[in-house]
């Protein structure tokens, strides 16, 4: 059983981290793909225009979205050529707040919506700068870590610490209430921890968070697991 659990945990470190690269410059997309794959990102899909990118966004959620500002064929609302920054700003609701998004450009001064984009957490990566590779590696690491952490928190049976604590407190409260409402709660008849204790004593041990109280609570949870069909005798 322990081996099964560790296998599930190990697999979390190779979770797919989906990325979308929006650029019509094949040289750049290929080089960036190679770099990102080396950082554990993948699968990676390409879109060569804003329209194609919009279609890709409908297909699935991406953990990392990189958009070139200079999308010559880009169009939004079918009215006029659009730049990558404009498309990215209008697409942020589809990309979602759980993803890492970045605008890539060699000319940062030409970004019309830089302030609006940065306010919404979009990173700016300067193409061909000395920082470009480092910036992309940083984005990859952020996307991967955030995705893995979210997956762990959402995985059934592996509750996040705060939820786990709340569930633990609720179980303690429930079982303590059960012990304290027994008709014979004062009767010293349980032999636990090499001591003779009453149900009321056990409730006090649980409330005080002693080792004995924790052990009794664990046994209660095992019983509940059996009751709801999550364990076998």
């Amino acid at each position, binding site marked *: 059983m322990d081996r099964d659990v560790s296998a599930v945990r190990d697999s979390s470190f190779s979770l797919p981290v989906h990325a979308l690269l929006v650029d019509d410059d094949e040289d750049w997309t290929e080089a960036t793909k190679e770099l990102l794959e080396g950082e554990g990102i993948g699968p990676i899909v390409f879109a060569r225009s804003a329209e194609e990118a919009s279609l890709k966004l409908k297909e699935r959620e991406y953990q990392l979205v990189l958009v070139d500002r200079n999308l010559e064929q880009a169009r939004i609302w079918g009215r006029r050529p659009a730049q990558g920054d404009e498309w990215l700003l209008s697409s942020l609701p589809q990309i979602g707040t759980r993803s890492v998004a970045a605008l890539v450009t060699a000319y940062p001064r030409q970004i019309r919506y830089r302030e609006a984009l940065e306010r919404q957490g979009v990173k700016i990566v300067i193409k061909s700068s000395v920082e470009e590779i480092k910036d992309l590696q940083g984005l990859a690491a952020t996307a991967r870590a955030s995705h893995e952490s979210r997956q762990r928190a959402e995985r059934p049976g592996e509750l996040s610490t705060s939820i786990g604590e709340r569930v633990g407190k609720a179980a303690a409260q429930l079982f303590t209430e059960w012990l304290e409402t027994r008709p*014979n709660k004062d*009767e010293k*008849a*349980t*032999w*636990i921890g090499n001591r003779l204790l009453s*149900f009321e004593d056990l409730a006090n041990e649980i409330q005080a968070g002693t080792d004995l109280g924790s052990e009794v609570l664990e*046994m209660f949870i095992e019983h509940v697991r059996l009751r709801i069909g999550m364990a076998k*005798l």
Partner: protein
Amino acid sequence: MSSKSRVVLVAPSYDYLTGHLARWLTEIGEKYITIYDCTLLVGDDANRHTLTNLIDQRDDALILVFFGHGARNGFLCEPGRGETIESDHDLLCSGDDFVRLETIEILAYCCYASLQFGEQVRSRGLNTFLGYKGEIWFYFTREEAFKRVVCIAVEQALAAREISPRSLEVLRLAYRAEHTKWFAGEYSHEPDAMFVCMCLQRHLKLLDTEV
């Protein structure tokens, strides 16, 4: 008491827990003592001197059933009636006390003894040790739930005149049957049924599957 009996039932009686367990084993012993030629060492008789004398009189085989307090390395007894150790109890016996016997079969209804003591016994070829790997809990308001289970296992061992993997199977089935009564059967509506189930579950969980 037959000093040459092959089967020995031992239950010290000096505190709340051992008082109850000794009574259970006495009931079994008195019921079967003539049928199966058992030796019953209960209360004051459950001391190291008497037990080691009894072991010394035999050199072939012994079946030992123990009810009481256990430790990792042996069975415990009342202070002053065994070997003094750093504990609230004395040591009644340990693995070394049985080395001269050809075979020893032990049913240990106590905490922890299946760990070091059990492994020591099992490591010697034909010997068997049926016991628990941790602290087993009791709820004496419903003592019949626990008594029924262990009595079935002891009676089977006495009838078969051996403690074997079959004894483990019988004990496990008895636990499951008793648990069902409290979990979903005739006693499931009792106000304390859940606690009986918890204790029985713990016994089953700690029961060593190596015999």
